[in-house]
């Protein structure tokens, strides 16, 4: 069954709204349900559709009142250009839609990183294929460290080899 709003995505959320004894059935996909969220009244147990979805996604929003309250008009219109997820949707679901969301919501994610991880910069593994310049920069740092040790040990031949490798990598970075 397709979503009755967009007609493109499969409907994953089915519910019935009863207004003045009149039943209306809804069959929506997750994204349209999020969009319509504003127009759906609170459910009987005080859950809005957003909270219901967050529940489906098994997520306890780590945003305190501060995070929720900060959703000004501005953040409401903040949207990832690649996957279309809005910041408002993200703050309800707690999941990002694609890797470009990190770019799109960059500034707003930083306080979250601080709160959860106490840090905002990666110090772990770097992948070969997509790690790019970072991989090279880290390798240069390591080689420089080794170079220092070689000079201290007066292992000059090895030091010369290391120096050449460092230069080659630096050219690669600049080129």
């Amino acid at each position, binding site marked *: 069954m397709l979503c009755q709003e967009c007609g493109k*995505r499969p409907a994953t959320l089915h519910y019935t709204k009863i207004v003045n004894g009149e039943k209306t059935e809804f069959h929506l996909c997750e994204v349209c349900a999020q969009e319509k969220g504003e127009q759906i009244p609170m459910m009987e147990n005080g859950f809005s559709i957003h909270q219901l979805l967050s529940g489906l*996604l098994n997520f306890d929003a780590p945003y305190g009142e501060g995070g929720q309250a900060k959703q000004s008009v501005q953040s409401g219109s903040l949207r990832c250009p690649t996957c279309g997820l809005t910041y408002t949707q993200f703050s309800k679901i707690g*999941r990002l839609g*694609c890797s470009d969301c990190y770019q799109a919501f960059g500034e707003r994610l930083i306080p979250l990183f601080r709160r*959860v*991880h106490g840090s*905002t910069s990666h110090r*772990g593994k770097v*992948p070969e294929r997509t790690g790019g*310049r970072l991989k090279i920069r880290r390798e240069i740092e390591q080689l420089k460290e080794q170079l220092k040790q070689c000079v201290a040990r007066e292992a000059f031949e090895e030091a010369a080899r290391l120096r050449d490798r460092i230069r080659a990598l630096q050219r690669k970075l600049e080129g």
Partner: protein
Amino acid sequence: MLSLQRFIQSAMSEWMRGGGPQSDIVISSRVRIARNLAGLPFPMLATASQSEEVVRRIEEAFQEEKEQPYFRDAELIRMDTLNDLQKRVLVEKHLISPHLAEESRHGAVILSGNEAVSIMINEEDHLRIQCLFPGFQLKQAWQLADHIDDTLEHHLSYAFDEHCGFLTSCPTNVGTAIRASVMLHLPALAMTQQLNRLFQAIAQVGLAVRGIYGEGSEALGNLYQVSNQVTLGQKEEEIIDNLVSVVGQIIDQEQSARRRLLESSPIQLEDRVHRSYGILAHARVMDSKEAMHRLSDVRLGIDLGLIKGVSATVLNELMVMTQPGFLQQYAGQRLDSGERDIRRAVLIRERLAIEHNDEN
């Protein structure tokens, strides 16, 4: 119906057979690495064809590396080829997450023959590499997961950012995207009411702790999982080392609590573990809550040398095999909860009897 021994042989993962270093307290060690493929939306927003593309690319990488020892006898299983019961058993064995079993679209898993490696596809992230070892072998689990990650990365381009590290659907996993955890059996700390104090201390060093089975603060069978919460800003090895050292301290505390119990009230302790053993060996109806509680007692009895003639691995097995999915798989049919309680009692009695005959 399969004979129980044959069923056990076919149903046990390596980690459930127990053993491994410090296995009297540490049941298992697990490391999970999350990765996403560059240029495709995360599973939550991926279209059917994009999700299919993810499976295709990962399957290709897996086939290319089929000669790796951990992939040689591994197979890729799509979730839509399994029935609910089969999926449930995989969840009970900790090989896939409930999310992959119930909510994923185009979900799949690559399982190694010994089930030490399971790679979930289209879970919350495109790729979740998990290594699960018996006993306290966190470093070994990390080394293997790290190696598998490198191997797959020869063929796949990962979503990565210089500042944020590996990009994940949930920002709480970003950076190294690793979650390392150990499953601990802590009966003596529970009996001596020391767990709350301990858990508060654990939370202060950036680790999380939760019961494995059961709801909220009540952990069935005194089984707890301790894991890292921080994934960004530390190196993978630092995260692992930190967890290893904290778990080392927990093990020391549990051991000294066990010693104190033995010294202060030996006969009461002996009575307690033997009562539980008697009930397991003879009961005709056994719900899962009671089963976990009794198995925990007996395990403690074995570890302290109070109960002879039963191996601790039997308890490991039974803790998993008395879960609902497993019982139904062994019975070869669906069972309601009343039937399950009867079957559970039978299974435990039979298993302990086999054990007893092997000993004599």
